[in-house]
């Protein structure tokens, strides 16, 4: 019975059907009543649908615009937990919707597998493995010895102890990068691989050595274990999904970053869409504002409809508009108009802005449908006869 009805009303969204099923079970409704419930729900659902021709873009813009005025402007402050700065508020929202390639504060959230996420010691250990440590962090002094033509590195024992790095690790990682490393009692030195190297090359070598990765993941400058929703996660400043996911204990199914383009590159466009929604919802909730999620979902759909993330800018989705006048209305009008006139573009005046410019009927809402009548049979014959008579009359009058 219930199954038949679900099949009959399969246009109903999943959530509603589930709710109805739940109520039916709880209230033990009779089959007559179930039918009534389905009918009523379907009616309500049809009524609450958006009407064809509704200007949803404008509604979305308004819904973002008003709360946007109340957002904090240009704040670069410490969010909740200490030691980690994050861009929030309007500037972050602009960043998302403009589809900036790299966020001003890249962040990666690393969740751990269940086995690892209870003990704070293992979490700290994993966090230390993620954090980027370059040679510069464990060295007291770099010096170039010009007589012996080599770079001498004096290691910093205190720094090494803090970061849990051994001398052997340093030498190993230098050798891995194909440097000509030798060890003495007090320091280690590096010779240039090329025999005919000049002095300049020696200095270049020194700069290169500073950036050598000793351990950790490239690009992660800060790590911070945080308790969130009953489990520990590691917040990382910087974004690098692939390398972090390789570390043991990291749950690669839940690792996320706020770098939308990196998400699109590693997990695909649908994941990027989900992240756009999640990130903008986070900002809005943080501010204590309330924008319906449907508006955000709509924006995310528009931004990802081309298979790549496109911002709401003149180089993004606006550049894809068919009409020249519509594009010119957004930004840099002269550029668009000149280009269109040089290439001989045609504007068919199909959309809204052009028609507002030209003071014409706008194809939105009640302006969208045209009246089309098709005459059949006798009616048709009568009408065409009338038309002919009219023409004849007009012709006579002219004479």
């Amino acid at each position, binding site marked *: 019975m219930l199954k038949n009805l679900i099949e009959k009303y399969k246009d109903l969204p999943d959530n509603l059907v589930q709710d109805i099923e739940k109520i039916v079970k709880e209230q033990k409704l009779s089959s007559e009543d179930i039918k009534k419930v389905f009918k009523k729900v379907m009616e309500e659902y049809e009524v609450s649908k958006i009407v064809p021709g509704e200007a949803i873009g404008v509604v979305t813009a308004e819904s973002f615009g008003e709360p946007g005025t109340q957002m904090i402007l240009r704040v670069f402050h410490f969010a909740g937990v200490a030691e980690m700065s994050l861009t929030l508020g309007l500037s972050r929202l602009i960043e998302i919707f403009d589809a900036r390639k790299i966020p001003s504060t890249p962040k990666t959230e690393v969740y751990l597998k269940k086995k690892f996420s209870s003990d704070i010691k293992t979490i700290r250990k994993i966090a230390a493995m993620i954090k980027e440590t370059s040679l510069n962090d464990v060295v007291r002094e770099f010096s170039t010895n010009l007589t012996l033509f080599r770079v001498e590195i004096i290691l910093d024992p205190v720094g090494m102890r803090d970061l849990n790095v051994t001398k052997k690790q340093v030498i190993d990682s230098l050798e891995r990068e194909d440097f000509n490393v030798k060890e003495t009692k007090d320091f280690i030195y590096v010779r240039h691989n090329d025999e005919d190297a000049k002095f300049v090359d020696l200095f270049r070598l020194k700069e290169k050595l500073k950036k050598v990765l000793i351990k950790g993941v490239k690009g992660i400058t800060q790590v911070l274990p945080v308790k969130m929703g009953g489990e520990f996660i590691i917040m990382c400043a910087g974004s690098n999904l692939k390398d972090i996911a390789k570390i043991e204990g990291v749950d690669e*199914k839940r690792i996320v970053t706020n770098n939308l383009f990196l998400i699109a590159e590693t997990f695909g466009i*649908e994941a990027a869409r989900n992240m756009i929604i999640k990130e903008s919802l986070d900002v809005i909730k943080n501010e204590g504002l309330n924008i319906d999620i449907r508006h955000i979902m709509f924006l995310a759909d528009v931004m990802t409809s081309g298979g790549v993330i496109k911002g709401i800018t003149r180089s993004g989705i606006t550049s894809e508009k068919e009409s020249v006048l519509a594009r010119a209305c957004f930004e840099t009008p002269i550029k668009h108009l000149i280009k269109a006139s040089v290439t001989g573009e045609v504007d068919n005046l199909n959309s809204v802005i052009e028609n507002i410019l030209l003071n014409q009927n706008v194809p939105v809402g009640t302006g969208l449908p045209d009246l089309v009548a098709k005459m059949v049979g006798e009616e048709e014959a009568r009408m065409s006869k009338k038309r002919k008579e009219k023409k004849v009359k007009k012709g006579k009058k002219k004479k």
Partner: protein
Amino acid sequence: MADNGESNIQNHMLVPKHIKLSEEQAAIILKKYNVSKKQLPKIKQKDPALTGLDAVHGDIIEIIRNTPTVGKSSYYRVVV
């Protein structure tokens, strides 16, 4: 990350289920929404979520999203 990187991408919490539609299914969808393939939203052939589906240009991909407003819902993208 385990050896097969492909399955991992599809298991990620941000990635919804992607299904390649057969010719007949695609025709039904196009008729239902009264659109041409050109009008559908796009997805790149190289998209990581499509690994293992061997989708080619012009295929229609059904994406089963889990949305907070309506529960499970289908979205369609054409491979470009």
